[in-house]
């Protein structure tokens, strides 16, 4: 099983530093969710983990090797990434896009083998999209489209799956549908999943491990109960939240929350270490 880890990672655009000296070890075979306010660097970290962005210093290690120095095609056999709101070229069929996930396993212009076809079939089934495989992607709903992209990532047959806000723009039912698919993949195949999610309750419900970020730094990481608590939420989002345990999922849930009055937020700000 592939292992991914960031050591002393600093990332930035031009002169602006977004993340500084970040150390993060993603637990194998579990679902990790990253939460944090807009601009806290969670997407940037995900992109760097996926070797789409280069760090300024420090490294991401995939099985102990620096990911940015490995052949990108070899990396694509171990790690798949689903960017935020990806777009398919018009006129492309569902099964054609999913077939692109086989790219790292192909050489030259060689067409798909029987084994490739089987893997594509399976990915479509796992995401519940096999009935749609001959449809144009343009003609699908947002939730279906997102599942097609997940199917493409699955066709890469990687141990690790990184997803940047896979549920954004989806309605509640479709959000759950996508997350259930991911959860099943994790439970049945033991794939390591890392995702950035805005909805705190979803992030807590589907995570084995959570990372809360603020201004490029980890404020708190650990089991959902350790991260979704009023002190951490106060620090990370500056919200005043009531957290209870959902009797159905046994996971923490924000029952209600409110903005903090700015002065108060400032005063009661708990330093990063304080919550541990």
């Amino acid at each position, binding site marked *: 099983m592939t292992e991914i880890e960031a050591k002393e990672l600093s990332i930035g655009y031009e002169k602006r530093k977004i993340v500084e000296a970040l150390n993060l070890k993603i637990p194998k075979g579990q679902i990790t969710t990253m939460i944090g306010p807009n601009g806290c660097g969670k997407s940037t970290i995900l992109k760097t983990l996926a070797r789409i962005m280069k760090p300024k210093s420090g490294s991401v290690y995939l099985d102990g090797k620096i990911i940015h120095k490995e052949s990108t095609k070899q990396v694509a056999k171990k790690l798949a*990434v689903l*960017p935020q709101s*990806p777009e398919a070229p018009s006129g492309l069929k569902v099964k*054609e896009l999913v077939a692109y996930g086989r790219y790292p396993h192909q050489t030259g*212009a060689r067409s798909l083998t029987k084994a490739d076809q089987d893997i594509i079939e399976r990915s479509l089934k796992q995401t519940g999209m096999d009935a749609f495989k001959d449809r144009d992607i343009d003609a699908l709903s947002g939730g279906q489209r997102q599942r097609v992209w997940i199917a493409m*990532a699955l066709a890469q047959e990687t141990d690790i799956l990184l997803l940047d806000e896979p549920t954004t723009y989806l309605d509640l039912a479709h959000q759950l549908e996508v997350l259930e698919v991911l959860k099943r993949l994790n439970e049945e195949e033991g794939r390591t999943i890392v995702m950035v999610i805005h909805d705190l309750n979803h992030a807590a419900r589907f995570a084995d491990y959570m990372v809360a970020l603020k201004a490029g730094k980890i404020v708190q990481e650990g089991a959902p109960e350790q991260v979704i608590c009023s002190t951490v939420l106060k620090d990370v989002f500056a919200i005043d939240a009531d957290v209870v345990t959902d009797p159905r999922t046994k996971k923490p849930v924000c029952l209600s929350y409110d903005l903090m009055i700015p002065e108060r937020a400032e005063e009661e700000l708990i330093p990063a270490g304080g919550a541990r």
Partner: protein
Amino acid sequence: MKRKPLIVFTTLVVFIVFVLLVSLQSGTFQMTPAEAFKTIIGQGSDQQELVLFEFRLPRMVLAILIGAGLAVSGAILQSLSRNDLADPGILGINAGAGFAVVLFIYLFQGSYQNLGGSVYILPMFAFLGALTAAALIYSLAYKKGITPVRLVLVGIGINAGFSALLIIMQLRMSPNDFMQATVWLSGNIWGANWSSVLAILPWIAILIPLVIRQANTLNVMRIGDESAVGVGISLERSRLLLLFLAVALAGASVAAGGAIAFLGLVAPHIARRIVGPRHQIMIPTAALIGSLILLFADYIARNMLAPSEIPVGIVVAIIGAPYFLYLLIKTP
């Protein structure tokens, strides 16, 4: 909409052969289909053989090669820039070649016709001009790598710059040279003989299979930078390679056929609408469509106002534009 690629290929080849045969027997020098057929199987008069094999056939073969070259170049550029409006013209390749040619005509002020070798020197100039423009665009657009948007924007800028210089020089020309330059800039299959065919044939015959080999990479490039890296594309290397292929194809085509506009834009579009966006099938289809359009346009160009000729590039635009608009209106 989806048809078996084999049927599409066969249909296009049949069309090409048909237009080729019709075109062969028509022109200023009249020939009946029977006479043309006799000549093809080697039983025509010397004069008929000369017209057919030394004048008409090389020209048509050139049209087929140039059409394929421009179409494939356009297909690459559209996928590379993820912009359906891209074609060799937009990357300043036509303007670069045009500038080089006009510079050449201007510098030799009519005396170039006496240089004898101008049939070979002019295409060389055009090719160098195309390469220069492409190199200029690539280096100006480079900023820790090439993004498609920068490539297109810089291309448009270079294109405008070259076009302006071109007009300044054209205005200082003698009327005769001006005509010559204008005809070239509109696109014209000139110097049609077997040595021109041999000059462009290797480019097309080697480069197009190389492009088809990159079909999987081109497919994945269409889904966005981040997804493309995600499935294991080495973006910069692939972009540079594909850009080189596109420029070399366009440069060779422009050198032989002048700045034929619109073909590189329209042929990939038509191909995509017939066979879908997968490059394994789309690239060969676009090549055949490019050949067919240019061959047909050349037939019209030679015969519509015979004995005088219209630049073939203008005919391409006249027959291509309405069909293109029809397609855009008809399909969602």
